[in-house]
């Protein structure tokens, strides 16, 4: 069952919030085993919703997958509870970091091991592994997570997810609100986790340039639909992506005013 076929297959899902608001209008995507896949798009395109539909955190926000399926290693995830999804090896690192502010850094990390119901020694090993990747967290292990810097909080959030020994991490805007240098540092660590620990990554990002440098494949979401997908290299060279997402147009930089008057081509037939 495992081995061949993609690790994650999202098949034509539709998501409705509060029974009335249609947010995703048929999204399909795949993440290969060991891959890094970028999910790109502007504000409100549906990136976070897609990730939450996979991790099943939607229900906690009164959202619902009304059509389509989510399969992980051939098993359907869309009928499981969030903690069951985590136990299968899929974990989401939420947008805005969401650390437990009144817990110490180490306690934050340890909560990530809870779902796995692991013994003390294996949790200890996992903790050492997280500190190996994020040495600055080891120095701050006794600090309250509410008082550490934004970059360190993002590291706590990723480290905490790592404690569950995930096969697939869903990263939601890890670059949000961080200095460019820190963003590079965090993405470098994500690359290492992917290469050394074999963690596959589905990455939702607004920073298209950054995401396409680290991902191998990319999907572009607009208004709840996938409008374009392809290998990262091809997307970077696509004229529309250059124009709308990378802010480049042919030889010259397009000014905001010109961009505003330009009516976007619709890429889907609907």
């Amino acid at each position, binding site marked *: 069952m495992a081995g061949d076929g993609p690790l994650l297959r999202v098949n034509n899902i539709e998501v409705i919030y509060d029974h009335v608001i249609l947010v995703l209008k048929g999204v399909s995507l795949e993440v290969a085993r060991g891959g890094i896949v970028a999910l790109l798009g502007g504000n409100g395109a549906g990136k976070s919703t897609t990730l939450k539909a996979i991790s099943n*955190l939607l229900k*906690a926000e009164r959202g619902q997958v009304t059509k389509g399926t989510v399969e992980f290693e051939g098993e359907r995830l869309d009928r499981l509870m969030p903690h069951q999804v985590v136990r299968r090896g899929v974990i989401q690192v939420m947008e805005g970091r969401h650390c*437990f502010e*009144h817990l110490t850094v180490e306690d934050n990390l340890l*909560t990530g*091991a*809870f*779902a796995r119901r692991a013994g003390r020694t294996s949790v200890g090993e996992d903790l050492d592994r997280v500190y190996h990747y994020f040495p600055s967290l080891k120095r701050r292990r006794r600090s309250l997570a509410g008082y550490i810097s934004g970059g360190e909080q993002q590291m706590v959030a990723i480290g905490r997810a790592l404690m569950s020994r995930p096969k697939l991490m869903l990263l939601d805007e890890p670059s949000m609100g961080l200095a460019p240098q820190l963003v590079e540092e965090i993405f470098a660590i994500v690359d290492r986790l992917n290469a050394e620990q074999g963690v596959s990554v589905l990455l939702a990002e607004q920073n298209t340039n950054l995401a396409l440098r680290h991902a191998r494949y990319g999907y572009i979401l607009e208004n709840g639909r996938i409008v374009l997908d392809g290998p990262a290299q091809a997307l970077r060279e696509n004229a529309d992506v250059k124009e709308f997402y990378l802010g480049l147009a042919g030889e010259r930089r397009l000014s905001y005013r010109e961009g505003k008057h330009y009516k976007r081509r619709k890429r889907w037939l609907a």
Partner: protein
Amino acid sequence: MHFLYTVLIDPFVQIAGDPRFFVEVLTGGLLTGVMYSLVALGFVIIYKASRVFNFAQGTMVLFAALMLVGQMEMGAPAWLALGTTCGVMVGLAFAVERLVLRPMVNQSEIILFMATLGISFFLEGLGQLMWGGDVHTLELGIPSGPLTLGGILVNKLDLVGAAVAGLLVTALALFFRWTSVGRVLRAVADDHQAALSVGVPLKVVWVIVWTMAGLVALVAGIMWGSSLGVQFSLSLVALKALPVLILGGFTSVPGAIVGGLIVGATEKVGEVFWGPALGGAVENWFAYLLALIFLLFRPQGLFGERIIERV
């Protein structure tokens, strides 16, 4: 002038004139305060993990005590009655999770609070339906009566209550601080969504905290029932737990104890020494005045969570 004298000077003259009596009053107050803390603890456990203010905590105290005393009056031995009552409280936790909290998930705090109001009425009715509305005497063989300790008169029952409360608080504080379940409960208290995302099964968490609160309510019910008798007014003791919570902080286990001590001591001392000047019944309102002052100047309470703000 005379009024100012009786309020500002006379009480202190009395205290200085008979310090032993003052210590006796103070000790009595502190011991009563510990009993308040027992009730407050149940609130703290649920509030800490779920930000739900459980209005039914007082009724749970009454309900647990009624279950216990009812079975004993039917002739069940104490250990059996205790066992079944524990079982009923655990069952109650499961029922609350399944029938109230689960359908209400993601509703705002005020709606969940209203739901606990409903639970409170339901339990009150159920308890009286099963065991009637009479006053029952609870006789578990806990020693009571006066005892002279170093020349100070105290009630034995109060001493036992203090010991039980102390033990319970120590156990709870250790549990929250050092066990992995305790850590997860603190995490859930901080951020539900994040807890969900790292794979904490919230349903299990709700059952755990309501079970804990139910068992604490049973202990409080035993102690209060032994001293006042098991009767409807027991659920009103919960109202005294409110100022205790405001003083100590809604999220702090040690806070519930310290808050209880302060409320118990000040209201008793106020009653005995200032009561005559203020027309008596100081005990009834003093705690609420204290709570009001705290709300104005330190709304998170003495031991409440630090409010972390980033700029």
